């Protein structure tokens, strides 16, 4: 073990192992967390971080290994027991109930039988004392992701835990909200609480964490003091080898290139009680450029994607134009035939049918395009050519798989995403709209996908990327617009964009005057 033998360990993990089928998601993990420290758990997507914390919180049971709490061996068989010990958890994908109020949500994890009104009062007081104001009576479904995270944190704090586990807490926050969270965490540390901080964001780990444990492919590959490391050295530990940096060749002659995707005054009423309305969105993407759309989750990105793709049609045919033609009343199939391609955020169940083979999933978005090469006259599917096209994409995108034509659900997130992006790139679309291209994807696959998107743009296509990952947008985009509460700011050229400026827009600040780009558009 590395340092800190002088400080008493609150939690000690030895040889913890969890096996799913043939895959060792966690392989003999050792981990020590001292009292009063912020301990980072670093690792790529799929490195085993979530599996490890689920075992610590009792929602998964390990195959082998030991856990010591305050020096005593414990078996954490249920979340209830974890709570009793003093372990609290803030989930990455929140474990909240949308149809219930904040106070009811909190009451559900407290198990103390006191009336809801008393819990609400306690929650309100605690939330204000930590500077995370909260209205206990509000329905969770009506709240933003930032507010939902507050409920999770307050709910966790009300259990007066000694150890708080936060799973990727900043992935849903603006940079400014993240700063606020860091203040809270530092205050908790000062109160003597320990924090296990899970992230793949190196800068914030360097900023707030005292120690770090790095995971790769389910194994601990190192312990370190992140303050003494550089972001590059941490990344090397995490990924194992150098990830090829994404190269963004300068875009030439964009100003005079034709706009291939134009959105004029796009407006949409909310379709469900908790949906975000879109308000008068304007944007144009020219041949050769990548435009990024930043924004905190749940600010209308999903609704926007559905409208642009044609999964939902528009009243005004001119509100979406593809290659100079009105497409607002055209279905998604029609828009594909006009030269557009789409990659949705959710891979399983939206971009791909989980229980269908890759070749069948190829047909999903390409049954109407490509002339008659996949579906012949009379509606008969040409299985042979579908299969060989799927194999072509698998080879081009380096999709790793265990069978010649496996079901989509059998692939890892990164490999499936490579297939889905590759399926669209294979058509050489003139307009490409991608929502969260590398969400939950490992660094190697992410770099591959990003590079492919840039190259598509430079070969003369218009590429629109919606993402919640600012690092990604800064790597990819020629200009970044921000979506907040169903409204889209004008794009900022990448040269003028900074994290802070984009962050303010994500938080809903007024766009200001820097947006001269629209006038030239």
């Amino acid at each position, binding site marked *: 073990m590395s340092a800190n033998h002088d400080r008493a360990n609150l939690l000690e993990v030895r040889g913890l192992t969890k096996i799913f*089928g043939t895959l060792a998601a966690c392989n003999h993990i050792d981990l020590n967390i001292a009292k009063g420290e912020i301990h980072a758990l670093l690792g790529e997507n799929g490195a085993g971080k979530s599996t490890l914390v689920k075992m610590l919180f009792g929602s998964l*049971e390990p195959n082998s290994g*030991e856990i*010591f709490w305050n*020096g*005593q*061996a*414990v*078996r954490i*068989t249920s979340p209830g*027991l974890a709570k*009793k*010990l003093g372990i609290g958890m803030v989930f990455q994908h929140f474990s909240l109930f949308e149809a219930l109020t904040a106070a009811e949500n909190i009451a559900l994890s407290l198990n103390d039988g006191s009336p809801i009104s008393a819990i609400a009062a306690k929650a309100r007081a605690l939330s204000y004392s930590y500077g995370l104001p909260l209205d206990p009576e509000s329905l969770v479904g009506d709240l933003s992701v930032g507010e939902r995270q507050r409920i999770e944190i307050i709910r966790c704090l009300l259990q007066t835990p000694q150890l708080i586990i936060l799973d990727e807490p900043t992935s849903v926050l603006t940079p400014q909200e993240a700063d606020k969270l860091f203040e809270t965490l530092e205050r908790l540390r000062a109160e003597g609480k320990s924090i296990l901080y899970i992230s793949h964001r190196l800068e914030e780990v360097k900023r707030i964490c005292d120690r770090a444990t790095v995971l790769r492919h389910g194994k601990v590959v190192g312990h370190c003091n992140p303050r003494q490391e550089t972001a590059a050295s941490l990344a090397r530990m995490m990924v194992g080898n150098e990830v090829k940096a994404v190269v963004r060749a300068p875009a030439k002659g964009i100003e005079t290139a034709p706009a291939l995707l134009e959105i004029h005054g796009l407006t949409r009423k909310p379709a469900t009680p908790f949906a975000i309305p879109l308000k008068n969105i304007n944007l144009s993407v020219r041949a050769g450029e990548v435009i990024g759309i930043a924004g905190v989750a749940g600010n209308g990105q999903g609704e926007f994607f559905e409208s642009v*793709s*044609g*999964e939902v049609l528009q009243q005004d045919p001119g509100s979406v134009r593809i290659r100079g033609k009105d497409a607002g009343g055209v*279905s*998604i*199939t029609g828009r*594909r035939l006009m030269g557009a391609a*789409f990659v*949705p955020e*959710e891979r*399983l*169940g*939206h*971009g*791909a*049918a*989980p*229980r*269908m083979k890759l070749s*069948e999933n190829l*047909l*999903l*978005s390409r*049954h*109407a395009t490509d002339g008659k090469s996949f*579906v012949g006259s*009379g*509606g*008969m*599917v040409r299985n042979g050519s579908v299969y060989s096209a799927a194999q072509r994409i698998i080879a081009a995108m380096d999709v790793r798989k265990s*069978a010649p034509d*496996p*079901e989509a659900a*059998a692939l890892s997130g990164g490999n499936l995403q490579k297939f889905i992006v590759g399926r669209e790139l294979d058509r050489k679309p003139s307009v490409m709209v991608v929502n969260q291209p590398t969400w939950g994807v490992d660094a190697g696959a992410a770099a591959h996908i990003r590079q492919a998107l840039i190259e598509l743009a430079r070969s003369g296509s218009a590429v629109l990327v919606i993402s919640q990952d600012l690092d990604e947008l800064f790597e990819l985009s020629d200009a970044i617009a921000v979506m907040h509460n169903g409204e889209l700011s004008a794009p900022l050229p990448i040269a003028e964009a900074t994290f802070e400026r984009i962050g303010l827009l994500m938080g809903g600040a007024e766009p200001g005057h820097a947006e001269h780009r629209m006038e030239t558009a």
Partner: protein
Amino acid sequence: MMRLELVKRPQRSALFSVLSPFIAFALTMIAGAIMFALLGVSPLNAFNVYFVQPISEVWQLHELAIKAAPLILIAVGLSVCYKANIWNIGAEGQFILGGIFGSIIPVLFPEFEGPLVLPLMLLLGMVGGALYAAIPALLKTRFSTNEILTSLMLVYVAQLFLDWLVRGPWRDPQGHGFPQTIQFGDSAVLPELMPDAGRANWGFVFALVAAVTVWLMMSRMLKGFEVRVLGSSPRAGRFAGFGLSKMVFFTFLLSGALAGLAGISEVSGAIGQLQPVISPGYGFTAIIVAFLGRLNPLGIVAAGLVLALTYLGGEAVQSALGISDKVARVFQGMLLFFVLGCDTLIHYRIRLIGFAAPQLEAAPKLEEAR
């Protein structure tokens, strides 16, 4: 206390896809043996009467085909619905309406004869079934009304409507007051396939043709792909550009038309007139047939024959052993239960966790020193 735990398989098991109906059938046999024993009948004797004797002669095989034809026709249509995750459970009503529509010509225009009569009747039967199925489809797409409840309610309405017809306006004036229509003329009766060997009629051929056609559609055509995508992941289906509303209409109209065809075939072939009751619950039994056939049209042909046998067996045990013919329904219900349970094995491995497993509610071992 024992506990079942399901462990998801990485891929669906090909072995259990094939085996599961057979395991289910075997389990049904075991349960059936217990049931017969409880009823005080030797299971072996009962099985002989139930499953063997009814198909030991050629004419009996014809009877089997007569019973199997409507089951297969209806179940083939329903399988498409269920694959699309659309729940038409009102096939019984669509069957009845098919019978009524198809009977318009022989009942109201008995003097109209000739080779055109039968095709027109069959067509009308399909139209009747499809139109009746269009009601829940319309309500589902227009108002998102639950199709399970509406299609089922329409069964009761259809039964009452038929009852009124044969007791009221369509009653045979020379029928001595019996609630039935006139006997159909010769050109309105579905011909028998091999009149010398038995009573089986063209309905069975329709069933086989429908099964093969739908099998081709589901396995080789884009339409079948559309059905499977929308059924398994509707969101991905919308992304593919397949419309759910269109699919609701397609599946309801298809299954309704096939149920209607089954209805008029039954009325015109097996009965020869309309009566207050024209179906011993074919529309509901077909649901079992569809699942027993694993929603595969070719599997459904086999399943239809098995379920037809349960009907014949039920009649046989009633006459030979004095057991209620309701025993057929019990067999059918058990079979469906076991089929559904066994299908779990395709996607999951089952682990039994007994007393020995310590993780069950284990008390915190806080006191235990390390």
